[in-house]
């Protein structure tokens, strides 16, 4: 089975976000970069599928040279090869265009399944998987919490608001992953894994290598653009309900505040 996993390198979730002076970008100079946590679930799911069915796991990502580190981590976890699309022309491309490049890179691997995180913890748009599936004309199974495959069909379970759905389709299928570590607890890279990863193939490609026209990716071709960023208003720390009250006194006071001041109960 040819398994492709698409990953993105994002700031660590503990990062404090600061804005650049132009208010259009965030300050990235002191950021710790990680593999987007949901994409890590996708890597884990891919490795488990490979362990069951055999095949290869290819990880594909995009961005600057720093992304090599994320790809090497995925290789150390057990992926077989990696592709980085690094083209300065992509820097300001919108979702549709970036995804078009990812589709081109994925197609070269002739995949049976593509796995990707349900969203990235930076832009939080959660649409790359769905766009990929649409561009490929494949079914998209979102937020899988279980995967079964006999090599011909794939069956997944996924949560919806207040319930659960079981879906089935013949391959190829694109699957996205969300939720928490409880389901797809990603493995750590072992020391031998890290050593091996250094020798695994990692190809760096430009848009033209993928048969794409860089002119289509220029900023003036974007269908949508960010005009400004802003930080949320600082929440002012509220009051500590105390006043020398005992436990039940504090409970009474809190209920009174929620009813009369906040009016939320």
């Amino acid at each position, binding site marked *: 089975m040819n398994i492709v996993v698409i990953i993105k390198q994002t700031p660590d*979730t503990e*990062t*404090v*976000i600061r804005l650049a002076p132009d208010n259009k970008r*965030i300050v990235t100079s002191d950021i710790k970069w990680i593999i987007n*946590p949901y994409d890590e679930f996708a890597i884990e799911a891919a490795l488990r599928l490979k362990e069951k069915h055999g095949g290869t796991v290819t990880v594909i990502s995009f961005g600057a040279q720093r992304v090599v580190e994320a790809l090497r981590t995925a290789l150390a976890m057990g992926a077989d090869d990696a592709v980085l699309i690094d083209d300065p022309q992509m820097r300001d491309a*919108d979702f*549709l265009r970036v995804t078009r490049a990812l589709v081109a890179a994925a197609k070269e691997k002739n995949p049976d399944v593509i796995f990707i995180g349900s969203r990235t*913890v*930076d832009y*939080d*748009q*959660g*649409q790359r998987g*769905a*766009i990929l599936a*649409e*561009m490929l004309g*494949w*079914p*998209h199974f*979102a*937020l899988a919490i279980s995967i079964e495959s006999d090599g011909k069909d794939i069956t997944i379970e996924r*949560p919806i*608001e*207040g*319930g*659960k*759905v*079981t*879906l*089935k*389709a013949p391959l190829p299928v694109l699957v996205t992953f969300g*939720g*928490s*570590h*409880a389901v797809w607890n990603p493995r750590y890279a072992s020391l031998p894994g890290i050593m091996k990863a250094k020798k695994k193939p990692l190809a760096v490609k430009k848009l033209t290598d993928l048969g794409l026209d860089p002119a289509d990716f220029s900023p003036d071709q974007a*269908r*949508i*653009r*960010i*005009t400004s*960023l*802003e*930080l*949320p208003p600082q929440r002012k*720390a*509220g009051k*500590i*309900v105390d006043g020398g009250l005992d*436990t*039940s006194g*504090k*409970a009474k006071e*809190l*209920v009174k505040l*929620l009813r009369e001041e*906040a009016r*939320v*109960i």
Partner: protein
Amino acid sequence: MAKDVCIITEYRNGDFRRVTHEVASEGRRIADALGTGLVAIALGSGISAKAADLGKYGVDKVYVVDDPALEYYLAGVFVPVIAEVIKQLDPAAVLLPASVDGRDLGARLGARINVTLLQDVIEVVVGDDGRIKARWPMFAGKCFAWCEWADGVPPLLSIRPNIMQTQLLDENRKAEIEQASAPIPKPRASVLKYELDTSGKVELTEAEIIISGGRGMKDASNYAMLEELAAQLGAAVGASRAAVDSGWRPHSDQVGQTGKVVNPNLYIAVGISGAIQHLAGMGYSKYIVAVNKDSDAPIFSKADYGIIEDLFNFLPALTEEIKNLKNS
């Protein structure tokens, strides 16, 4: 004539989901600002009977595709049908819910009609020149971004549930109905099972009140205390990542940057210290209450009301007090 604003509805179990009314109300506001009408595209099985009711929330006309094949959302069926109807309507803007299904639908629809979707929008403004700008939270709300679409591109946006005000215009207002014609393709994927939780449990992302427990809960069994209080308040029960990683609660209950981002009217954080990644998931709640025995816990810097107490003493007292309130 000016182009209409269009919404895409979400229908489940014989009725429109509440978020559809929120989207309709926001659509009406945008249509009024543009001086144009509001239409809806409604797909479902048996949906015709309910469609006219969308008029209550400001929809002027509903394009209905009513077919047994549309009982459950499947992208392979819904996306081509909706794209075809949109092509016929040529709307000024398209809004849909940022629900689990709506997120998938919106992204695929955008790819199909070559418009970039903006997902999870929390605010829309219409300029004097009629240009639409929208804002969404990045980094789970640590930062907000304003966006606009290129000239000639109709904005396509999904609206985060529980943010927009529902505006009931007139209980008796009816929308005009038109059966839309679009071929319904056979999907590659099929729904094997569709299990809805009928316990009446409130979904986290749609709850008005959430009570979350963290590491301080110490054990899975202690969540019964939160469940009891939640039942009194009609609230949903959430959990921090620490609690979920400990196996005390299912991952579907996790609130935070790597869980669900929630925005209830009231969020009660119990035994949660307030890691950045948790604060990112609930910092947008209207009112926050923190219960923690550690007075240095970062959660207190975000809380409107802080209670420095052992949760095992305080929770029973609070539940008691809420019961008294309900009986009075």
